[in-house]
């Protein structure tokens, strides 16, 4: 796929390809490879969570794994928001699980099966953007529902001299409004960049092995391959960290809305 006609196209992996065409009212709602991987993510999370549904008093390994993930998220919300954070555990948990499973699924070496290619759902700005907008909407809804127009005091830190209030209000408002973009862009860029880097290195390995000059393989392909192993491990770390950062920042933003500051 990537090396069609001997050319490496590191961007090809991000192409959305329709599998089942579906057009509704002028919108293209086709079931694409992206949608397929989202459904696979849903299935994986569901199967994982089933292991925690045995609800035994003395848990097995799988149940402990599920409980430690749920405990991780509920602890994060309890620490960042306090007792009121419990209400947001389902959302942040869904967000965290969707992102981390989608990230990890994109790292799976499915390319060894002919005609199959791993697709990283979270490497699409549309997807990360929707998730960020949902998080931001929750912050806005909770903020205005709990505090009304007093929510705007979020943009005026304590102890601000009166004369500075208009300026600081504008700066804080701007930093508040930039949040969904930073959330969406961070995840999108991290995943995209990592996958492009890996694809480029993979291209070096393949083209180095196919090169006519014999010295190219040991000098280019081998170091690239070794580097790829390291980058793969780093990418797995990035997958987990990006999911954690997204969930953590969401909980911090919700904290702003719940408790102001």
């Amino acid at each position, binding site marked *: 796929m990537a090396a069609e006609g001997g050319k490496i196209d590191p*961007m*090809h992996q*991000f*192409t*959305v390809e*329709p599998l089942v065409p*579906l057009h509704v009212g002028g*919108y*293209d*709602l*086709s*079931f*694409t490879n*992206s*949608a397929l991987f*989202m*459904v696979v*993510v*849903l299935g994986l*999370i*569901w199967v994982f*969570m089933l292991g*925690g*549904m045995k*609800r*035994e*008093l003395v*848990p097995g390994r799988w149940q402990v794994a*599920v*409980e430690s993930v*749920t*405990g991780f998220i*509920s602890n994060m919300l309890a620490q960042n928001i306090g007792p009121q954070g419990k209400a947001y*555990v*389902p*959302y942040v*948990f*869904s967000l965290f*699980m*969707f992102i981390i499973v989608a990230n990890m699924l994109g790292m799976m070496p499915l390319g060894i099966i002919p005609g199959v290619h791993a697709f990283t*759902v979270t*490497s*699409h*700005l*549309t*997807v990360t953007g*929707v*998730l960020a907008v*949902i998080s931001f909407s929750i912050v806005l809804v909770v903020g205005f529902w709990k505090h009304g127009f007093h929510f705007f005091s979020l943009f005026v830190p304590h102890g601000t001299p009166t004369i500075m209030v208009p300026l600081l209000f504008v700066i804080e408002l701007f930093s508040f409004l930039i949040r969904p973009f930073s959330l969406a862009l961070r995840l*999108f860029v991290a995943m*995209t960049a990592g996958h492009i880097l890996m694809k480029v290195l993979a291209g070096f390995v393949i083209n180095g092995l196919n090169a006519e000059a014999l010295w190219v393989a040991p000098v280019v392909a081998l170091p690239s391959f070794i580097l790829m192993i390291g980058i793969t491990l780093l990418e797995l770390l990035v997958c987990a960290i990006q999911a954690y950062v997204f969930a953590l920042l969401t909980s911090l933003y919700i904290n702003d809305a719940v408790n102001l500051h």
Partner: protein
Amino acid sequence: MPQIAQIASTYAGQIFWLLIVFGLIYFGIGRAMLPKIEATVDMRARKVADDLAAAEAARVAADATEEAWRTKMAAAKAEAQAETAAAKTKAALAAEKRVKAADVKAAAKVAEAETSIRSATAIALSSIESAAAEAAQDMVAKLSGAKVTAAAAASAVKEAMVHG
């Protein structure tokens, strides 16, 4: 970059399927399964806390039982010691009494023996006197041929005995 090049043609489908999938995850997993798992965790934590409390209560009860046993044991020991001491004094008193009675008996015996010794001594002395008087009578008769009456010999002997 397909994500941006294709955005116009794919955004609707991406959003549509993401909302469906994320909605299923949120309502089917986050809302339905997660609370049950958390309830299990909470139940376990509560059970552990209850068990710890029960163990603590049992420990306190055991401590109280031990304390009660200790005091009981101490009381029993003191009682036993008191009884022993009483028995000892009783025994000592009885022994003293017996010793006193024996002393009295022995003293009586000693006095009896002394009187008998004294009477025996007196008898012996009187027999010595009569024997000495007879001897003196004989000696006087043999030496001087004078006849001394028994009475005179006896009085002379008595005088000699008194003056040594």
